[in-house]
């Protein structure tokens, strides 16, 4: 997200630092920083739970809000949606108390790296997986909000998309508090920032767009027209343009609807691809036949000329 010029209290730890919580007295030993974000810093640490991700926020209110969300996630039935939450505590220093929490360390490959290495056909599959998880989250009454490749990693094999940072998750019907412009419906002028399933589905469509090129294009003068034209004319996106556009315009009211539409499109494009290869094979065959015909014709003409020559001059 945005990087601000004015100072922000970034916490830095040297590897080996031991942190003890004020309330629960749990010990954590810092291994290394994992990332510096807009809302805080995440460190990898040893603990009694094994290796965990420790998140320190810039403000205590932010940490508390995120913990509330993680608690809600743990109540959704089935496979865990976000990282599991282990502990919430304060770390007291001379400068003041810092709120932090310990969560499951999800060791995976960033989504876009994974697609770059394995090929774009995986993008559609990860989107299918993502839509299934989003469906469960929406049914529980929540909207992810700040959905973007940076918040998604791929673990496995078997390859599975996982959610890293769920801090932007918002109760359905409220307003989205955190977003990243490229993936935000309001930024592109496609609608409000109300937390509803179609807000997440817009972001999913934009993840698809982002995955095709790896870079994020500028909004430009006429964002709506530019975006749609880009999707329809892009070699990798064109086959899915229909589904992507519908998601952008909020035509799907549930993640499951979009998932079904995408699955259908994938099956269509695959059978179409087969047809194309078949056509090419038959074309090649007929070309060979034509070549052979040409040779035959040439040989017969030479033979005829020779016969004539013999008939006229020798005889």
């Amino acid at each position, binding site marked *: *997200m*945005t*990087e*601000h*010029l*004015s100072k922000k209290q970034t916490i830095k730890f040297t590897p080996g630092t031991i942190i003890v919580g004020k*309330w629960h007295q749990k010990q954590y030993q810092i291994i290394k920083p994992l990332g510096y974000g807009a809302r805080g810093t995440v460190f990898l640490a040893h603990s009694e739970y094994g290796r965990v991700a420790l998140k320190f926020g810039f403000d*205590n*209110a932010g940490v*508390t*809000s995120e*913990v*509330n969300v993680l*608690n809600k996630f743990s109540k959704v039935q089935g496979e865990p949606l976000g990282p599991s939450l282990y502990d*919430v*505590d*304060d770390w007291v220093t001379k400068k003041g*108390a810092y*709120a932090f929490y310990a969560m499951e360390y999800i060791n995976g490959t960033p989504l876009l790296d994974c697609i770059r290495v394995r090929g774009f056909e995986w993008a559609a599959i990860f989107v299918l997986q993502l839509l299934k998880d989003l469906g469960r989250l929406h049914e529980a009454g929540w909207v992810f909000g700040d959905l973007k490749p940076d918040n998604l990693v791929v673990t496995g094999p078997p390859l599975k998309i996982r959610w890293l940072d769920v801090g932007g998750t918002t109760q359905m*019907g*409220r*307003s*989205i*508090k955190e*977003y990243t*412009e490229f993936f935000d419906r*309001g*930024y592109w002028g496609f609608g*409000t*920032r*109300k*937390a509803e399933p179609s807000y997440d589905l817009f972001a999913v469509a934009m993840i698809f767009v982002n995955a095709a090129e790896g870079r994020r294009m500028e909004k430009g003068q006429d964002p709506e027209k530019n975006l749609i034209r880009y999707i329809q004319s892009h070699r990798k996106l064109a086959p899915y343009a229909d589904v992507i556009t519908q998601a952008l315009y909020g035509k799907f009211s549930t993640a499951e609807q979009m998932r079904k539409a995408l699955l259908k499109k994938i099956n269509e494009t695959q059978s179409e691809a087969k047809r194309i290869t078949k056509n090419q094979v038959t074309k090649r065959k007929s070309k060979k036949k034509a070549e052979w015909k040409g040779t035959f014709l040439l040989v017969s003409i030479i033979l005829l000329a020779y016969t004539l020559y013999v008939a006229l001059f020798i005889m």
Partner: protein
Amino acid sequence: MKKGRLKQILLITDGCSNQGEDPSAIAALAKEQGIAVNVIGVVSEDQTMDGGIQEVEDIALAGGGISQIVHTKQLSQTVQMVTRQAMTQTIQGVINQELQQILGDSESMDDLPPEKRGQVMEVVDELGETVNLEVCILVDTSASMEKKLPTVHEALLDLSISLNSRMGSNQFCLYAFPGKRKPIDKLLSWTPKIDSISHVFSKLASGGITPTGPALKEALKSFDKRSRRDLAAYDGAPIEEAND
């Protein structure tokens, strides 16, 4: 806490004030009247803002609000973030006061154990979503700001999208300073939505002086006018009913 209104002044500027009252003093006065003053300092990519930064921070500190220095490009996201953070801060302030009354002097939200803090935070979030909000926006249109105005315009439309996605209602008004003849010109009276302000921004004549203090003073008055109008509307209602 009853669902009242949150009042904010949002000042968007790029440098030091050079005319009229001390802006920090006016901001402190605003704070006394329950109005938070947020300040966003905008710098272009090739520009520094040495003297201005201190003033930006001082005004926000005096006004009980939040300050942020940003590059022009990041303005949209910052405007909505600052507004939201300031709302949360104000609500937390009120809740902390209540907590102190219940739990004793030194207790605030941060002194609660994490589990309890989570519950309080849910109330803060809920209030932030449903509370009614009034934002008076002050845009510095002095000469150096001229190139940044299209971005400011975009950021304000964006703010309107963000806040109107909330459940609570919103009111915005918009002023530019320096004004043509006065220290400040009103561009938009209190309205629930910011749209079609592109024409007001294109007509602005950018001047050389930056009367931030007087501008803040005028913004403060706009809240007075608003509450008086509200009162009148409130008084009117029962009379109409009686006539029926």
